[in-house]
């Protein structure tokens, strides 16, 4: 059964120096046609791959809040009309601090959105400038105040560390600011320099002073300590929350479960296939208009791959991979199937096996990729 849906709004008013998601400048884009196409895609997909009810909906981007009020209203109406929702739905909207007017917040609230995820990145205005963000720290406080006033109780912010020229102290200061906000959830990612970004080009020219692996490791260690100190549990490599506020949508991915993906360049995992949609907005719209699903890539995941993915996704969670669940799902005992890999990693003290789970040790969290690779045996 499919319990999660991701919707992609590929428009941005400004493009950040590190972002390589599927996105385009908002100006001059056929936004209304796009929303119409999204509506159609949901309708077509749901009739082909129906579901009873969704536990989570996540609207990401791009910048979903770059839509104007009418568009936002229409978009939410379209979601609510097309997607069946469970009673305790987690309905998240990504937003840029500064974009969320009281009116827009009200539209979201009325539409049933109950979780806001803000792209804060850092509280250092100089760094914000350097990474191409247009908002400033003060926008964060104002937006969160407004959201709370309208009745949003589940608010998350994204932070990025290991930014160019960032020091451990600087990141610590940003964290300290973050803890003053009285919110429920934090995601903190170390900066990854991806191809086709401003940062990548700078890096290649030797003009991007990144802090380096040792500092990055220090920052990550400090992050985990601070979160624990402030009562936020780490439930995944990059995610921390108050008890009960874990993002159920994100957990769908790490639990290797199915999800819809709607919109240009969106990814889905439905009916045994991982698919991606056409990325270019125009192409996406044209395909929908022709009455076909805008599938760009379609890969039927083999059983061997499913087992690998169950491991490298599940190990991202603090609780790790459930051995009984794995055994039931694949009819194979992971401890036997991955016997050598597990023995090697346990010896290195990167993973541990306890209370029916295989999970990363604290040391292993720093070197997740080394662990994950071991499970790619095919």
């Amino acid at each position: 059964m499919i319990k999660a849906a991701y919707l992609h709004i590929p428009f941005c008013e400004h493009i950040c120096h590190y972002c390589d998601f599927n996105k385009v400048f908002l100006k001059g884009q056929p936004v209304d046609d796009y929303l119409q196409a999204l509506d159609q895609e949901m309708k077509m997909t749901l009739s082909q791959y129906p579901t009873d009810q969704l536990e989570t909906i996540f609207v990401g981007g791009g910048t979903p809040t770059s839509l104007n009020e009418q568009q936002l209203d229409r978009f939410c109406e379209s979601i609510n009309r097309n997607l069946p929702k469970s009673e305790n739905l987690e309905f998240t909207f990504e937003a840029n601090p500064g974009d969320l007017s009281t009116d827009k917040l009200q539209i979201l609230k009325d539409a049933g959105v109950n979780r806001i995820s803000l792209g804060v990145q850092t509280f250092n205005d100089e760094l914000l400038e350097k990474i191409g963000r247009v908002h400033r720290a003060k926008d964060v406080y104002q937006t969160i105040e407004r959201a709370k006033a309208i009745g949003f109780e589940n608010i998350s912010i994204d932070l990025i560390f290991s930014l160019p020229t960032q020091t451990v102290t600087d990141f610590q200061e940003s964290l300290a600011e973050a803890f003053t906000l009285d919110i429920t959830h934090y995601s903190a990612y170390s900066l990854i320099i991806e191809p086709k970004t401003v940062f990548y080009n700078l890096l290649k020219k030797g003009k991007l002073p990144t802090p380096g692996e040792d500092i990055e490791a220090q920052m990550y260690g400090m992050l985990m300590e601070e979160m624990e100190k402030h009562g936020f549990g780490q439930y995944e490599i990059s995610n921390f929350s108050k008890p009960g506020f874990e993002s159920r949508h994100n957990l769908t991915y790490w639990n290797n479960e199915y999800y819809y993906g709607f919109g240009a360049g969106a990814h889905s995992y439905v009916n045994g296939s991982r698919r991606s949609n056409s990325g270019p907005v125009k192409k996406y719209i044209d395909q929908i208009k022709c009455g076909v699903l805008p599938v760009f890539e379609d890969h039927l995941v083999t059983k061997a791959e499913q087992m690998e993915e169950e491991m490298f996704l599940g190990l991202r969670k603090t609780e790790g991979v459930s051995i009984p669940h794995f055994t039931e799902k694949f009819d194979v005992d992971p401890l036997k199937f991955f016997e050598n890999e597990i023995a090697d990693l346990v010896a290195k003290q990167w993973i541990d096996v306890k209370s029916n789970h295989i999970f990363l040790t604290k040391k292993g969290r720093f070197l997740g990729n080394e662990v994950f690779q071991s499970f790619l045996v095919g």
Partner: protein
Amino acid sequence: MNREDRLKRQEKIRNFSIIAHIDHGKSTLADRILEKTNALTSREMKAQLLDSMDLERERGITIKLNAVQLKYKANDGEDYIFHLIDTPGHVDFTYEVSRSLAACEGAILVVDAAQGIEAQTLANVYLALDNDLEILPVINKIDLPSADPERVRNEIEEVIGLDASEAVLASAKAGIGIEDILEQVVKSVPAPTGDPDAPLKALIFDSLYDAYRGVVAYIRVVDGTVKVGDKIKMVATGKEFEVNEVGVFSPKATMLDELTVGDVGFLTASIKNVGDTRVGDTITNAKNGTTEPLPGYRKLNPMVYCGLYPIDTARFNDLREALEKLQLNDSALQFEPETSQALGFGFRCGFLGLLHMEIIQERIEREFKIDLITTAPSVIYHVHMTDGSEIKVDNPSNLPDPQKIDRVEEPYVKATMMAPNDYVGAIMELCQLKRGIFIDMQYQGENRVSIIYEIPLAEIVYDFFDQLKSSTRGYASFDYELIGYKPSKLVKMDILLNTEKVDALSFIVHNDFAYERGKIIVEKLKELIPRQQFEVPIQAAIGQKIVARSTIKAMRKNVLAKCYGGDISRKRKLLEKQKEGKKRMKQVGSVEVPQEAFMAVLKMDDNNTKK
């Protein structure tokens, strides 16, 4: 054909090569000549047709020779038969150049109208003169804004001593002067002399291996006639064969009944081993053949050695097969099995030079899909032991214990460099750094200088040419020849990773530079070897004495960050890529070492030149 016809035909044959410094436009001129003689329809015309191997095209150099037969109707109304023999354009292949020149009566000397005479131009001209060829100077690229044909004409006269008054001014690229060149070939290149009825004498100037035909020998018939079905003998090896096919390339292989005096073509005779048709050998009749071979055959000796090891040790036999196959077409390649403690089973291979080595390495990786670890190149050292014996060492890790060595001799070359005189200082500084001994310096014309040094070959095979180019902004040209062995104060530097000696990283260095090089190499290795799961000390040692040390830090953090809107496939790809990267590394003890690290010794001078 009877004797009359053969002699008449012989009158109309012109055999020639094109010689030039690299980049002076040799291949483009060859293309134009092919076009002009209608050897190809324009549709068949691919840029630089004679360079047929992919690698040649990519690198813009000619490695294997080609010989084509062309028909040309001259202004005198007569039809002529041209054989154009291509020559490799790199110093590593000098011997092959000299063999192909031996198959000609004339040579077109191409000189760039802007750059003038370069070191390789000179070297090739001397080879041509050694073979008594008629040389036709051509000043190419006259359409370039920087062209100065009159200066170059003077240079040819002053520096080489050739009469350049009739030098054709040409632009192969723009198709200017091509006909004049062809007319000069008719007029000035002598027709072959030789007796079609004499015993067969044919020079093998190249050979290649074809899976169906066996060895295809490229030959020039000097005397006599060879037909299908003839019994032939190789003078040097004494092996006998029966001729299956003879023919010419025009430029497609075209079968003929016979090849006779002056012809340049190919011959197959179910020859299974390239070693039986050595380049430079003479083919004659099996019965009543000549006992006097054509001059010039010599066995090629490799100058540079390195170890080739499969990254995946299970592919040792595949590597052997690949080397055997390559050797079929390349008798200069030598190899024998060797064992390294660090790298396992592999081969010590001998090459004509560094380019030759790189080409073989690339072909093995590309055509045979075997990932390789290549150790740093080495020359052959002559080691005189205290007990009076002498051994030859082609692998640095085999250099005996210093106490047992009386002295070590290393090969020296005479290096000739030519450049505008602004760069004299830079060149001399570089040669000094490379332990060169100054021999001579001469002004060539107004603004050009030729500088001669004697330099240890070991210094040349590293990155001398690259450094020469970079310190003279590409203006210097370079050629060298081996002149023999001289004693040097040499020591072996060992490298220890995680306190274990890695034999494949050992190198031989001059005593005076040892400490500095030790320091540079440990820093270089630290850059090249990625962080490991634990801290790894790197040490450089001479005998028991540690002369430099550094440390590769332990890996601290490697974990994927964000989930890209559920894009799991991308995560998987990234992990697969990281895992693949590790497979390209060699496990040496407990340390994963990438290929580049084994070549670190070559990169040592980067730091020096940057200063």
